[in-house]
C-alpha cells in the first residue's frame, strides 16, 4: 500500500471485511487523498458512519471515529457539529444507509445547511445483508428481493440533496477514480452541507445477479453507463434512463447553520453586556 494512504489507515485493522473487487476501497483511498490535499487538521476531524459495508470505513481510518446506528450517522454528525462547530465532521455512508432508513436526516441536513461532508458509497445494493434492492437500484435489476426484476424507480441522490438545499453536490464513480479526491476535497473545504455521490461496484451481490460477475465487468458497466454533465444536458429523459450523470452540480455559498448560531450566541452576549451597563447607569 502506498505510504501516503498508510499514514491515515489503522493498519492493525487490516484487512478490511470487503469482498475482493469491491469499490469501497477506491472511494476510501479517494477520501484520504482528498483529506491530505485539503490541508485540514486531522486532530479536529471526526469521521461518522452508519451501518453497512461502506460504513465500516470509519473503523479503518486513523481519526476520531464513530460507527453509529443504521441510517443515523447524519444525526450524530449534526450533534457533533452543532455542539462543537470548530470540528470538521465527515459522514461516510452508503445508499441504503443515507437514502432509505436515513433519508429524512439526509434531506434535513441539506435543508438546514449544516457544515457536514457526506460521502455516499453508492453501490445500489445492501451488500452487508447479501444484496437486496436499495433506493438507488436501477429499474429492472435482479436482486435478492427483486428476483423477477426491480420495478421501482431509483433515487437520483444528487437531485434530492440539491433540491433540499445543499451547497456542494457532485457525482463521480469508482471508474473515474481520479475525480473522487478532487470532489471530496471541494466538499471538505465547502462551508456548508456537501454531498459526493460515488457510484461503486458490488460484484459479489449486485454484479453476479446481473450478468456482471467480475469486478472488471462491473467497472465496464459503470464506465458505459456514465454520462458527463455537459453531455447529459443535450440528452432526453429516456436517453438518460439508467445512466449515471457525473460532474459537479452545485457549488454555491449560503449562510451555514452552526456559524449563524455562533453569531446568535455573540449577539445575545453583547445584549446582556449592554443590559448590564444600562442597569449600572
Amino acid at each position: 500500500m502506498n505510504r501516503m494512504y498508510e499514514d491515515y489507515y489503522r493498519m492493525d485493522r487490516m484487512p478490511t471485511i470487503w469482498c475482493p473487487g469491491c469499490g469501497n476501497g477506491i472511494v476510501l483511498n479517494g477520501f484520504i487523498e482528498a483529506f491530505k490535499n485539503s490541508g485540514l487538521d486531522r486532530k479536529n476531524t471526526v469521521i461518522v458512519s452508519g451501518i453497512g459495508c461502506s460504513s465500516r470505513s470509519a473503523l479503518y481510518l486513523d481519526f476520531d471515529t464513530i460507527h453509529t446506528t443504521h441510517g443515523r450517522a447524519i444525526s450524530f454528525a449534526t450533534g457533533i457539529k452543532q455542539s462543537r462547530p470548530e470540528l470538521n465532521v465527515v459522514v461516510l455512508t452508503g445508499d441504503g444507509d443515507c437514502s432509505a432508513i436515513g433519508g429524512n436526516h439526509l434531506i434535513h441536513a441539506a435543508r438546514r445547511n449544516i457544515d457536514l461532508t457526506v460521502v455516499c458509497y453508492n453501490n445500489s445494493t445492501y451488500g452487508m445483508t447479501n444484496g437486496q434492492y436499495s433506493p438507488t437500484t436501477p429499474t429492472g435489476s435482479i436482486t435478492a428481493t427483486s428476483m423477477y426484476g426491480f420495478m421501482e424507480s431509483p433515487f437520483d441522490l444528487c437531485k434530492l440533496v440539491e433540491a433540499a438545499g445543499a451547497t456542494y453536490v457532485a457525482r463521480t464513480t469508482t471508474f473515474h477514480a481520479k475525480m473522487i479526491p478532487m470532489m471530496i476535497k471541494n466538499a471538505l473545504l465547502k462551508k456548508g452541507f456537501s454531498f459526493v455521490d460515488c457510484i461503486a461496484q458490488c460484484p459479489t451481490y449486485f454484479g453476479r445477479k446481473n450478468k456482471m460477475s467480475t469486478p472488471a465487468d462491473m467497472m465496464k458497466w459503470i464506465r458505459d453507463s456514465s454520462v458527463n454533465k455537459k453531455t447529459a444536458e443535450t440528452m432526453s429523459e429516456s436517453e438518460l434512463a439508467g445512466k449515471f450523470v457525473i460532474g459537479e452540480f452545485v457549488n454555491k455559498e449560503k449562510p451555514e447553520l452552526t456559524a449563524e448560531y455562533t453569531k446568535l450566541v455573540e449577539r445575545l452576549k453583547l445584549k446582556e453586556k449592554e443590559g448590564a451597563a444600562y442597569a449600572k447607569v
Partner: protein
Amino acid sequence: MKMVKNKFMQGNAACVEGAISAGLKFYAGYPITPSTEIAELCAEKLPKIGGRFIQMEDEIASMGAVIGASFAGVMSMTATSGPGFSLKQENLGYASFVEAPCVVVNVMRSGPSTGLPTSPAQSDVMQAKWGTHGDHPIIVLCPDSVKSMYELTIRAFELSEEFRVPVILAADEVIAHMREAIEIRDDLKPVQRRYTTKKPGEFKPYDDSEGLVPPMAKFGDGYRFNTTGLMHDTEGFPTSDPVKSQKLQDRLRDKIEKNLEKIVSVKTYNMDDAEVAVFAYGSTARSAMAAIVEARSNGVKAGLIVPETLWPFPEKIISMYAEKVKAFVVAEMNMGQMVYEVERCMHGKAKLLTVFQANGELIKPELILNRIKEAVK
C-alpha cells in the same frame, strides 16, 4: 448553602433550570406534548449561556444528535413523551452500549400509541428499562414534585457522567405541568466528566483495567479513538470473541449493580411503625401521601415508600419492609407494571393489593385509602 429566592414554576421549567445548573450545553429535540416546554425553554436559554439548541427532524435524530454531542464532550439532553420515547429506543440502546453520558426526559402521557396526549400516565416505566433490544445498563429516575424534577434532573446529569450511562427522567404529565414553588440554587458547579489522563496511543476507550467505568476522551483531543455499537473490545473495535463479549456484558451490568448504594434512592414516610406500606411514585405518590395521612387519622398505621430511582429497582428496601408490614398497596397510573418488581422483592412475606388506573386521570387518594383499609380488615 446559598439560595436565590423561591420561584414558582412548572415541572418542565424546573427540569430546564436543573439541567442548566448541572452544565447542560446542548439540547436536541422534537416537539411533543407534554414535554414541549422543555425544548422551548432550552431554545430560549441555551444560546444565552453559550450553549446550543437544535430542533431535529424526528425523535430518532434528536437522540443521535445528543449522543454525538456527548462524545464531543458537551453535556447534552433531549426530552420527549410516549410515541417519541418509543422512537428513541434504538439510539438509547446505542448510548447505553457505547457508554455515552446523556439525559433523556420522558414526560409520560397516556398510551399506547397516540393515546391521550395531554393526560398523565406512568405506563413507560418498564419500557424505560427494557424498551431497547439487548441487555443494557440504564438508570431511571422519577420525580414526584416540581422541586424533585429540579433536583433529579441535576442528579440525572451527575449519575450519567459518573457511570457513563444514559439516565432517563421518567416524569409524568402532572409533575411536568404542575406549578409549585421551588428554591433554585445558585451555588452549583457544573457536573464534571472524568477524562483520561493517558496519552494518545495509550488510551483505550473501554479499558476495564481502570475500574468498572472507564474514563473518556472527547473528539478533537488527538486520541483518534473509535466507538461502535457492535460488540467491542477494550480498544473500541468490533469483536466476536465470546470471552471479550461476555466480559463487556458483565462490566456493563456490574457498573450499575455494584454501585447500587450510590445510585438507588428511596423516600419513606411514616414507615417506622407501618402495618400497610403504600408503594407509589411520581404524581401518584402525592395522592398516596394524602391517603396515608387520612388512614392514620382513621387509626390505620399506613406508611409510604416513594422510589426516586425506578431502575435499578430498590430491591433491598422493599424486601426489608416486606418483612415488617402486613400488606403492600401498589398504586400506579398504568395497568400494573412496577407491581411485578415489588411482588418479586416481597418474597410472599406480605399481602399485596393494587390500584391500577390508565384512563388519563390522576389516581384519587380515596382509591388508595380504600385499599389500605381493605388491607387491614
